[in-house]
């Protein structure tokens, strides 16, 4: 199960980053907030997704001993 969610989060990272990039540029063009101000959101988002990936991945390593882990 952890393996699947890990893969899933890793796979959705690209599309989410793409949506965020498109949204920030669109917001700039429609005069909401300039891309020059909002670009750090992309880095934050990337960091959050990486963190999420790690959070899901870690239990797999820890639980591989006595009980789970047979899926690897």
């Amino acid at each position, binding site marked *: 199960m952890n393996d699947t969610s890990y893969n899933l989060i890793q796979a959705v990272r690209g*599309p989410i980053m793409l949506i965020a990039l498109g949204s920030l*540029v669109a917001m700039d063009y429609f005069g909401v907030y300039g891309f020059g101000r909002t670009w750090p959101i992309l880095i934050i988002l990337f960091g959050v997704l990486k963190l999420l990936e790690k959070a899901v991945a870690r239990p797999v390593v820890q639980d591989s001993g006595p009980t789970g882990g047979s899926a690897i």
Partner: protein
Amino acid sequence: MRRGSVIGPLILIGIGGLFLMRNLWPEIPLVDIIAKYWPFVLIAWGGLRLIEILMWAIMSKPIPRNGISGGEWMLVFLICIVGGTMYTARHYTTWFPAGRAWHGVVMDFGDSFDYTLAPVEKPCAKNCKVIIENFRGNAKITGSKDATTVNASGRETVRSFQQVDADKANKETPLELIPQGDQMIVRTNQDRVSDRTRATAELEITVPIGSSIEGHGRYGDFDVQSVNGTVDINSDNAGVRLEAIGGDVRIDLRKSDIIRAIGVKGAMDLKGYGQDVELQNIDGQVTVAGTYTGQIQLSNLAKPLRWEDTQISVSCEKIPGQIHMGLGEFSADNLIGPIRLNARSRDIQISDFTQALDLTLERGNVDLRPGKSLPKIEVHSRSGDLELALAEGSKFDLKASTDRGEVHNDYGEPLRVEETSRGATIVGGSGGPQLRLETDRGAVTVRKATADELPNLPDAPKPTKPIKQ
């Protein structure tokens, strides 16, 4: 593209659709649309891929390691570069010719043939509405007190490779006046000619002074004078010059080199993109929602101004003086507030203003000279120097601060400087309107206004004795 993904085929369908649109409806400004809306392609792409991945996960199919592969990121990068360049070129510079101008370059390989259009004249009501349909070329419309007819004449230019084609095009595009109830339609029939020839016209139209004008243009200028009705101009690319208009004015342009209006009794409503704007002696409210990148000059506006731009938004109640906006600058003199000004990056200079000023600025220097009767002032700037000139002996309650920068109290008593860790604050006053100025980074200066900076208000000190030699 990933095997089993629908994105690849969709991109192909999209590209095909765009080319088809260009062929079937050439009048749609496709380049403008792509330049503005390309980020939505990225959003749609990401959204579709996200749905795909979730579907695969639900159906327990193998999920790819990366949602977007390296090659696809390269394509995204390419789209960003091309889209960003198109957007910048379309909205912020003048060197990049518009879509129609490209068409013009192609057409310029032919020769131009000139013809005189047979003049037409039809009687109409004193307050009839004159509609110029789908027009390419320049039109000069003049209202006349004595006229009881609409009279149109002019010249036509046809660009073509051969004289025969040009003659044929000229025959197919007669100038017509078509009465329809209270309306009079001026039709040039320029749509009838094929793509290989292009007809443009120079029209002189005389109308009764009470008429209203409605112009739909594709390329060319409108020059309207002495008309008491409303004026409504809608064009892909036009310069508009208006003088002595009695009614409301609405101008909606996709591109323009100049919009000039002098002496309008009604309200003015401007939309779209363009460069220079010059408005003078306007009696009605002025509302502007668009992007104008050239020199902007507004003077003597009797009713409120509402200016909404992607770069700056301004509102004030009346402009007996003038406002000038250019690249990176805003200067104004003699305004009646309350004034609200919100800008991204500008150097702001405002002198002689009343009621209240609320100014929010991201970047730029601010220079305020309010004059003798002090209004309430509130200024917030993220980065830039603030300078405030106050008349000697005026009453106010001042607090001007910088988070990081120096302060200069050139006014003296009753103001005092309070140092903070990286910045400082000038506070003090003798009771009166609140003046609040703050900048995150920059110098703050408060000084005494010199005599020539003070406007000649009735209560302003005047020299008591003339200087004798």
